[in-house]
C-alpha cells in the first residue's frame, strides 16, 4: 500500500517542501544582508542564486507523482479553463457532442433493457420455452403432449403450461373484461416471481372442481379492490362464477404483464388429447443442464410420444429455446439494433463536426502553440494537451448528453408500441448504460480530438511566430477540414438514405389496399364461454337478437358478427379438400384461412364481392352450406375452372370444442376481394368464409358501420349489450382506424426515430459545411479582396465560394452512395417492399442534403461577395 501512503502523505510533503525553500531563501537573504547588501538586493540575489523557484518546486513535487496520469489530469483541468474562456465555441461543440452522446445513451438504454440485460429472475439462464415443432416450424403444445413431457423428461426441474384467456370480472354489478392467463400451478414459484400477499396455486388446484382460485397483479388489486389486504380468501365473480382470491403478485415488473389475472389450468378429460395444440410451455432446466442436452432429452421424449400416438404426433418434435427474447419479434430486435446503428452515425457526424471546430480554433491558437513549444513543450506534451482539451469537451458533452438521454428516453418509451419489447424490460439509465455513455464519451473525445491535436502539435515555429504569416501548415489544415466535411456528408447521406428507406416503406404501408374500408367502423369482441349455450341454435338466436338491437340504434347502417376481424385475424387455419379432386392423406390436406361471418359482414367492411353473390339471410342452418372464397383462393385452387361451380370440403366446427366435426361440402357462391386478415403484412393467403348462421361460434367479434364518428356510439352499444345480458362486457372496443393505427405502431416507432436521427444528422452536416466555408472565407478575405481589386465582380466571388462548397458536398454525396447501398442492404430484410437501393428515397435525401449544403454555403459566399477590397487589403 506504498502508493496509498504516498497519496495521503503527499500534501504534507508539498507543504514541507515549500517551507524548506522559503527558509532557504530567507537564510540566504539574511546572509547577504550581513555582508552589507540592502534587503531588496539581497532578496533578489538570493532568488537569482536559487534559480526559478516555482519551476524547481514543481520539479521537486513531480518526484512524488505518477507522472503521466497526473500530468494528463492537469491538462484536462487546463482544458476546462480554456473552454470557459471560449464559451461560444464550447457551447456549440458541447451541444453537438451532447446530441450524439444523448441519442446513443437513450437508444442503448432501450437495447440494453429490451435485449441485453439478464431477465429479472433467479438463474434466468435456466428458464426456457418449449414448443412443439414440425417441419421446422414451432407450434403450440397439446395438453396430452405437455403431460407426457412433464412425466418423461429428465432435463427440467419443472415444466408449466399456460393459455391466454379473458374473464368478465363483475364488481358491483358492472362487468369488465380482464385479460387473464390460465396457468399450471407452480408457474410463479418456478419463474421466481414473488407474491406480495397470499400464495401460489397448489398442485391439487390443477383439478377441475378445485380450480376456482385466482391470483391477480398488484396493479389490478390496487385499481379494482383499493389495495385491501383482506382480499385474500374473498370471493370474486369471474364469468358469473365464484373464485377465491389466494394471492397478489408483487408490485413492479409483474404489473407490466399482458395479463392481470391468473387462474389454475385444469384439464377436462376431453382436453387431454394430442391433436389440439393450444398451450405455451415454459420450463426451468436442472442445474448444469445445457440447452443442447435439454433438446436431446426432448427429442427422445417426443420420439417415444410419436411412437405411441402416430396419428397426431408423427413428425412432431420439440424445440427448447431460451426464454430471453423468445417473445420479441425479429423485426423489433432488428429495428432496435438498426436504430442503435443510426445513432452511432449521428455520434460520428457530431465528432467530425467538433473535430472541424477544433481544427479551425487550432488555427487561431497557432501562436499559443508556437510560444509553448519555443518555451520547451515537446510535441508529445502539446498533443496530449490538445487531446485533453477535447476530452474535457467530450466529458461536459457527455454529462449534458446523459441529461438529454433522460428526456429522450421518456419520449421513446411513450412511442414504443405496447408489448413489442419483453415485459421484463425495465428501460432506464442504469449503471451499465452510464458506463456505455462514458465509453462513448471518451471515444468521442479521442475521435474528435486526435486529428486536430496531431495537426496542432505539428507546428512550424518560425512561420507561426511571424506576424500575419500564412504557412503551409494552415493550408494542410484546411485540406484536412475539407476532407472531414466530405466524410461528414458521406456519413450523413448513408444515414439519411437509411431513414429515407424507412420513411418510404412506411409511406407505402399506409397506402396499402387492406381490402376493406377502415373508416366509420367500430369493433369489439364478446368473450362468451361455450358452456353458456347448449346448442348451436342458441348461439345463432343470441347473436340475431343482439345484431337486431344494434341495427335498431340510429346512426348505425349495418352490424355483423364474425369469428374474426380484418387485421386481427380470422378464426384460424383449417384443412380442406376440393370436391371432385382425389382426396389424399387426411394429414396432408392443404390449409386455408377460415371464418364464419353474418351476411352484413361484407357490407359493414365494404369488402367487394367480385364474382357471384354474398351471403343472404336465407343461408341458414338447415339450408345448403355455402361459402365465399377470396381471390387468392380462387386463383390458387380454381384456375381455369368456374369457381362458382365448385365445392370445398371443410370439417364442421363444433362450438366450444377444439375438435373438428364431420366433413361438410360448402358450395362456393361468391369470390371476394382479398382482405388482410392476418395483419398489415398478411398478403396472398387463401381464405374461405362461411355463413355464421351455418357455423355459429360463441365468442365472436362484432363490427358495425356508423354514419358519424364510430367512437361516439360506444356507450350506446355497451348499453344495448347490457340490455341483452347484464353480465356481458365488451372486450377490445376499438374503431377500425384505431386497429390499423395500432398495427402500424412498430413501423411508426422506427420511422419517427429514424427520421429524427436523420434530421439531427442533416442539421449537423449543414452546420459542418457552413463552418468550413465561413472559415475558408474569413481566411481568404485578403485573397478575395485582391481578386476584387483586380476586377473580379461580386457575382464571380459568390460563384467561386459556392463552387468550392458544392464540390465538397458532391464529393461527400458520391462517397456516401456506397455507404447508402451498404446501409440499404442491411435494412432490406426489415423493410416493407423495399430494395437495397431505393432510387426515390436515396435521390430525395441526396437532394435534401445538397440543398442544405447550398444554403449553408450561400451565407459565407454572400459574405465573401460583400468584401470591400479596400478594407480587406488594409486588414493585414
Amino acid at each position: 500500500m506504498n502508493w496509498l501512503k504516498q497519496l495521503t502523505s503527499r500534501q504534507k510533503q508539498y507543504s514541507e517542501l515549500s517551507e524548506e525553500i522559503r527558509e532557504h531563501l530567507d537564510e540566504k537573504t539574511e546572509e547577504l544582508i550581513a555582508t552589507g547588501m540592502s534587503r531588496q538586493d539581497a532578496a533578489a540575489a538570493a532568488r537569482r542564486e536559487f534559480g526559478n523557484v516555482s519551476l524547481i518546486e514543481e520539479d521537486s513535487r513531480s518526484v512524488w507523482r505518477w507522472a503521466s496520469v497526473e500530468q494528463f489530469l492537469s491538462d484536462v483541468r487546463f482544458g476546462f479553463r480554456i473552454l470557459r474562456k471560449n464559451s461560444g465555441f464550447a457551447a456549440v461543440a458541447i451541444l453537438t457532442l451532447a446530441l450524439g452522446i444523448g441519442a446513443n445513451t437513450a437508444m442503448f438504454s432501450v437495447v440494453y433493457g429490451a435485449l441485453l440485460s439478464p431477465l429479472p429472475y433467479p438463474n434466468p439462464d435456466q428458464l426456457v420455452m418449449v414448443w412443439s415443432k414440425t417441419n421446422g416450424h414451432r407450434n403450440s403444445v397439446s395438453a396430452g403432449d405437455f403431460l407426457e413431457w412433464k412425466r418423461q423428461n429428465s432435463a427440467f426441474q419443472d415444466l408449466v403450461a399456460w393459455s391466454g384467456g379473458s374473464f368478465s370480472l363483475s364488481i358491483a354489478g358492472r362487468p369488465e373484461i380482464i385479460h387473464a392467463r390460465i396457468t399450471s400451478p407452480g408457474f410463479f414459484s418456478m419463474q421466481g416471481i414473488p407474491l406480495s400477499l397470499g400464495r401460489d396455486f397448489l398442485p391439487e388446484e390443477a383439478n377441475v372442481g378445485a380450480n376456482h382460485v385466482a391470483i391477480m397483479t398488484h396493479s389490478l388489486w390496487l385499481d379494482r379492490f383499493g389495495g385491501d389486504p383482506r382480499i385474500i380468501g374473498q370471493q370474486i365473480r369471474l364469468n358469473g362464477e365464484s373464485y377465491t382470491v389466494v394471492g397478489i403478485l408483487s408490485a413492479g415488473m409483474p404489473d407490466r404483464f399482458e395479463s392481470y389475472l391468473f387462474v389454475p389450468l385444469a384439464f377436462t378429460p376431453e382436453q387431454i388429447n394430442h391433436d389440439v395444440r393450444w398451450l405455451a410451455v415454459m420450463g426451468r432446466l436442472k442445474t448444469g443442464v445445457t440447452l443442447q442436452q435439454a433438446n436431446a432429452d426432448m427429442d427422445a421424449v417426443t420420439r417415444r410420444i410419436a411412437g405411441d400416438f402416430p396419428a397426431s404426433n408423427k413428425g412432431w418434435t420439440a424445440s427448447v429455446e431460451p426464454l430471453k427474447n423468445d417473445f420479441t419479434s425479429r423485426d423489433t430486435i432488428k429495428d432496435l439494433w438498426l436504430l442503435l446503428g443510426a445513432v452511432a452515425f449521428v455520434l460520428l457526424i457530431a465528432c467530425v463536426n467538433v473535430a472541424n471546430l477544433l481544427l479551425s480554433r487550432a488555427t487561431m491558437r497557432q501562436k499559443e502553440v508556437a510560444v509553448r513549444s519555443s518555451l520547451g513543450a515537446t510535441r508529445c506534451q502539446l498533443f496530449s494537451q490538445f487531446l485533453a482539451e477535447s476530452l474535457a469537451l467530450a466529458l461536459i458533452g457527455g454529462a449534458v448528453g446523459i441529461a438529454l438521454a433522460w428526456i429522450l428516453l421518456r419520449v421513446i418509451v411513450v412511442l414504443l408500441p405496447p408489448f413489442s419489447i419483453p415485459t421484463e424490460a425495465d428501460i432506464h439509465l442504469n449503471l451499465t448504460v452510464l458506463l456505455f455513455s462514458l465509453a462513448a464519451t471518451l471515444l468521442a473525445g479521442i475521435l474528435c480530438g486526435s486529428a486536430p491535436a496531431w495537426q496542432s502539435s505539428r507546428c512550424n515555429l518560425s512561420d507561426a511566430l511571424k506576424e500575419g504569416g500564412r504557412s503551409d501548415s494552415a493550408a494542410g489544415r484546411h485540406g484536412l477540414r475539407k476532407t472531414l466535411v466530405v466524410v461528414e456528408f458521406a456519413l450523413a447521406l448513408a444515414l439519411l438514405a437509411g431513414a429515407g428507406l424507412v420513411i418510404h416503406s412506411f409511406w407505402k404501408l399506409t397506402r396499402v389496399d387492406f381490402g376493406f374500408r377502415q373508416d366509420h367502423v367500430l369493433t369489439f369482441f364478446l368473450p362468451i364461454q361455450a358452456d353458456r349455450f347448449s346448442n348451436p341454435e342458441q348461439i345463432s338466436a343470441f347473436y340475431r337478437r343482439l345484431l337486431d338491437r344494434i341495427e335498431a340504434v340510429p346512426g348505425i347502417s349495418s352490424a355483423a358478427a364474425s369469428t374474426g376481424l380484418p387485421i386481427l385475424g380470422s378464426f384460424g387455419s383449417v384443412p380442406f379438400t376440393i370436391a371432385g379432386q382425389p382426396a389424399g392423406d387426411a394429414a396432408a390436406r392443404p390449409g386455408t384461412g377460415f371464418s364464419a361471418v353474418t351476411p352484413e359482414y361484407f357490407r359493414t367492411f365494404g369488402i367487394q364481392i367480385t364474382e357471384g353473390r354474398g351471403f343472404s339471410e336465407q343461408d341458414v342452418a338447415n339450408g345448403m352450406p355455402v361459402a365465399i372464397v377470396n381471390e387468392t383462393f380462387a386463383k390458387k385452387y380454381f384456375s381455369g375452372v368456374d369457381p362458382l361451380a365448385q365445392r370445398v370440403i371443410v370439417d364442421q366446427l363444433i362450438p366450444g370444442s377444439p375438435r373438428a366435426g364431420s366433413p361438410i361440402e360448402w358450395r362456393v357462391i361468391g369470390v371476394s376481394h382479398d382482405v388482410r386478415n392476418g395483419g398489415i403484412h398478411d398478403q396472398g393467403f387463401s381464405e374461405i368464409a362461411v355463413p355464421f348462421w351455418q357455423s355459429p361460434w360463441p365468442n365472436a367479434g362484432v363490427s358495425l358501420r356508423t354514419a358519424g364518428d364510430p367512437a361516439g356510439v360506444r356507450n350506446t352499444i355497451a348499453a344495448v349489450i347490457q340490455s341483452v345480458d347484464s353480465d356481458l362486457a365488451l372486450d377490445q372496443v376499438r374503431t377500425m382506424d384505431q386497429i390499423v393505427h395500432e398495427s402500424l405502431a412498430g413501423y411508426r416507432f422506427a420511422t419517427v426515430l429514424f427520421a429524427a436521427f436523420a434530421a439531427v444528422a442533416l442539421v449537423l452536416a449543414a452546420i459542418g459545411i457552413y463552418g468550413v466555408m465561413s472559415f475558408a472565407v474569413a481566411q481568404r478575405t485578403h485573397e478575395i479582396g485582391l481578386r476584387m481589386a483586380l476586377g473580379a465582380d461580386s457575382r464571380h466571388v459568390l460563384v467561386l465560394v459556392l463552387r468550392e462548397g458544392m464540390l465538397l458536398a458532391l464529393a461527400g454525396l458520391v462517397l456516401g452512395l456506397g455507404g447508402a447501398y451498404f446501409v440499404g442492404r442491411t435494412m432490406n430484410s426489415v423493410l416493407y417492399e423495399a430494395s437495397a437501393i431505393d432510387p426515390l428515397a436515396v435521390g430525395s435525401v441526396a437532394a435534401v442534403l445538397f440543398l442544405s449544403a447550398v444554403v449553408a454555403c450561400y451565407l459565407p459566399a454572400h459574405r465573401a461577395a460583400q468584401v470591400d477590397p479596400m478594407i480587406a487589403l488594409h486588414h493585414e
Partner: protein
Amino acid sequence: MKKDNDRDLFPGALEMMILRTLKRQPLHGYALVQHIKRTSNDLLQIEEGSLYPALQRLLKAELVKADWSTSATNRRVRIYKLTAAGKKHLERQVSSFERMIEGITRVLAPGES
C-alpha cells in the same frame, strides 16, 4: 518533461555529492548546498534550487531521511541524514564513478601512440 537541472554535471552526480556530504554529517538544505559549493571551490556552477528535486528523489528512494529541528541560528530547518541504504548506495556509486574517472583519465592521458 523533466528539466535537466544539473546540466553541467552528469546524471546522478549531484545526488552522489549530496550523499557524500551527508555521510560526513547531517545537514539542512541550505548548509548542504553551501558546503558543496565551498568544497568544490565554486568550480561547480550549480543553481542552489536544483538541490531540492534531487533531495526529493533521494527521500523517495529512502536513501536519506529528513527531520525538522532548530538550527544554531534559531531557524526552523529540515535536517537530512543518510540511511543505511543510502550509505550502501553511495559506496556503489563512488566505486563505479572512480572506475569511470579512471577510464576517462586513461583515454584523455597524452597517449604514447
